[in-house]
C-alpha cells in the first residue's frame, strides 16, 4: 500500500526538521551562528489515468486524470544569512561585521575557511587567532608592548606603544564576500568553506564594494529567534503525529482486508 510508504516519507521529513530546529536552539548562544531551515518538496507523481486520455469512443476526454503522489522529500537545508544582533563585550579583539562578508581563517592544512565569529585573541606570538588557534588571514601581529589596540570600521588595526603619541598600523583585516552566501559548506567550529554553489570569494577591505563594516568591542550574536524555533518545533511534532495516524489507518485497512473470510 502506497499510503504506508508515503506516510513514512512524511515522518522522516519531520524528523529531519526537528533535527535542524534542535541544532538551531542548541546554537542559540553561539557567536556568529546563522540559523538553518529545512525545506520540503513533493515527490514524483505516479500517473494512473493521464489527463487528456479518451474515456469513450465518442471522443470524450478525461479533464484532469488521476495522479497519486509518493510523499515528501527534503529539498534543502539552508542557512538564513540575516544579520544577528550586536552584543557588546568590551573585548579589544572582539570584532563584529555589520553587513555582508566573512573573516578569512587560515586552516592548519593551508586552505582558507570563512567565519562570522569575530571573537579573536592573540596567541603566544602575538598573532591574532580564532578560538581554535587558527590564524586570521592576512596575518596580524600585535606588538608585545602595545598598550592599546584599536580596530577601525574599515579594518585598520592600530597599536599604541608606550612613549609614542601616534598609533602604529600593524595590519588590515579583510573581508571575503560570496555571490551566494547560503551555498557555503559548514564544517563546524563556526567555520564555512567555499563550494561550487557559493562561487569564488571576492576579498576587499571592509566598507568597500558592498562589504560590511567592523565594530570593535562587539560580537555578532546568533540570529536564532527562540519563539519562532519553538513554534516550528510544535508544528513539526504535530505533523509527525498526523503522519503516524496515516500509518495506523493504512494498517487498519490492510487488517480489514486480510480478515475477510471467504
Amino acid at each position, binding site marked *: 500500500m502506497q499510503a504506508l510508504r508515503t506516510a513514512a516519507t*512524511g515522518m522522516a*521529513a519531520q524528523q529531519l526538521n526537528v533535527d535542524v530546529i534542535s541544532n538551531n536552539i542548541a546554537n542559540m548562544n553561539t557567536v556568529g551562528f546563522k540559523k538553518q531551515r529545512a525545506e520540503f518538496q513533493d515527490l514524483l507523481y505516479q*500517473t494512473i489515468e493521464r489527463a487528456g486520455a479518451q474515456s469513450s469512443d465518442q471522443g470524450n476526454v478525461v*479533464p484532469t486524470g488521476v*495522479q497519486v503522489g509518493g510523499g515528501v522529500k527534503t529539498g534543502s537545508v539552508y542557512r538564513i544569512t540575516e544579520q544577528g544582533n550586536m552584543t557588546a563585550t568590551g573585548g579589544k579583539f572582539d570584532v563584529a561585521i555589520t553587513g555582508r562578508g566573512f573573516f578569512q581563517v587560515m586552516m592548519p592544512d593551508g586552505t582558507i575557511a570563512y567565519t562570522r565569529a569575530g571573537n579573536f585573541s592573540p596567541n603566544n606570538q602575538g598573532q591574532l587567532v580564532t578560538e581554535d588557534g587558527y590564524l586570521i588571514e592576512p596575518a596580524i601581529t600585535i606588538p608585545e608592548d602595545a598598550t592599546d589596540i584599536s580596530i577601525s570600521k574599515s579594518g585598520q588595526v592600530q597599536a599604541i606603544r608606550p612613549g609614542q603619541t601616534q598609533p602604529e598600523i600593524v595590519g588590515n583585516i579583510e573581508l571575503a564576500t560570496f555571490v551566494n552566501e547560503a551555498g557555503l559548506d559548514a564544517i563546524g567550529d563556526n567555520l564555512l568553506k567555499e563550494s561550487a554553489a557559493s562561487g569564488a570569494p571576492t576579498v576587499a577591505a571592509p566598507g568597500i564594494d558592498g562589504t560590511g563594516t567592523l565594530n570593535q568591542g562587539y560580537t555578532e550574536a546568533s540570529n536564532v529567534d527562540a519563539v519562532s524555533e519553538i513554534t516550528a518545533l510544535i*508544528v*513539526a511534532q504535530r505533523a509527525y503525529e*498526523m503522519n503516524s495516524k496515516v500509518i495506523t*489507518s493504512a494498517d487498519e485497512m490492510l487488517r480489514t482486508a486480510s480478515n475477510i473470510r471467504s
Partner: protein
Amino acid sequence: MDNALYVGLSRQMTLRRELDIVANNIANMDTTGFKVESLMVETEPAAPAHTAGAPRPVKFVIDRSVGRDFGQGVLRSTGATFDLGIQGDGFFRVRTADGEQFTRDGRYHMDGDGRLVTEDGAALLDEGGGEIVIDPKLGPVSIAKDGVVSQGQERLGKVGLFQFQELSVLEKVGENRFRNSSNAQPIPATESVIQQGMLEGSNVKPISEVTRMIEITRAYEAITKMMEANAELSRRSVERMGKVN
C-alpha cells in the same frame, strides 16, 4: 451474485487510492506551495429511472480524476530577501532541464553567477522568458509587489507571473512544480501580487484530512463487511442446494 463482490472490490480499490492521496497531503502538510488534492470518484453508468420490474443496472465505482484545490495557502514571513510569496492565482515560471515549468514555491537564491534560481538550479524567468541576474555588489535587492526587481536605482527585470484559463491543464511533476500538459498558453497574471520575504505554506487543512482518513477507514470496513455477508450468502446457498435428497 458475483457482481456484488466486484462492485465491492471496485470500491475497495478506490478507497485505497484515496488513502494514498490523503497520505500524500498529510506528508506535504509543511511543503511550501503545495496544493491539496482529493480523488473524484464516479459511479457509472448514469442510472435510468427505475422502472417497476426491470432489473437495476449494476454501478461500479470508478476514480475519474484528482481534483486539486488551487486555493491560497497561508503566507508566512521568513525575512529572507529572495523568498517570494504569491497572493492571487499566478505561478512563477522556471526553466528546468525538462523545459519550462510552473510553481508557487517562492524560494530562490543566487547561484555562483548571480542568477536567481530554485534549490535545484532551475532559473526563475522574467516576463519575457529571460533570467534575472543580480550583482551582489550593488547592495540590497528589493522586489516590488508587481515583481519588479531593483537594486538601488537600478532596475534588473520583472519576475514573471503567469496564470491559466483552465488550471486542469497543469500536471504535477514533483519538486513542487507543475507541467503544462496542453497547448494552452499561459497569460500574465496581472492581479497577483508578490510579497517579498514571505513564503506560501501548503493549503492542506490537517483536520479535514484526518476526518477524511477516518471516513475512508470506516467505509473500507463497511464494504468489506458487505462482501463478507455476500460470501456468506453464497456459502449458505451452496450448502442448502447440496442438501437436496
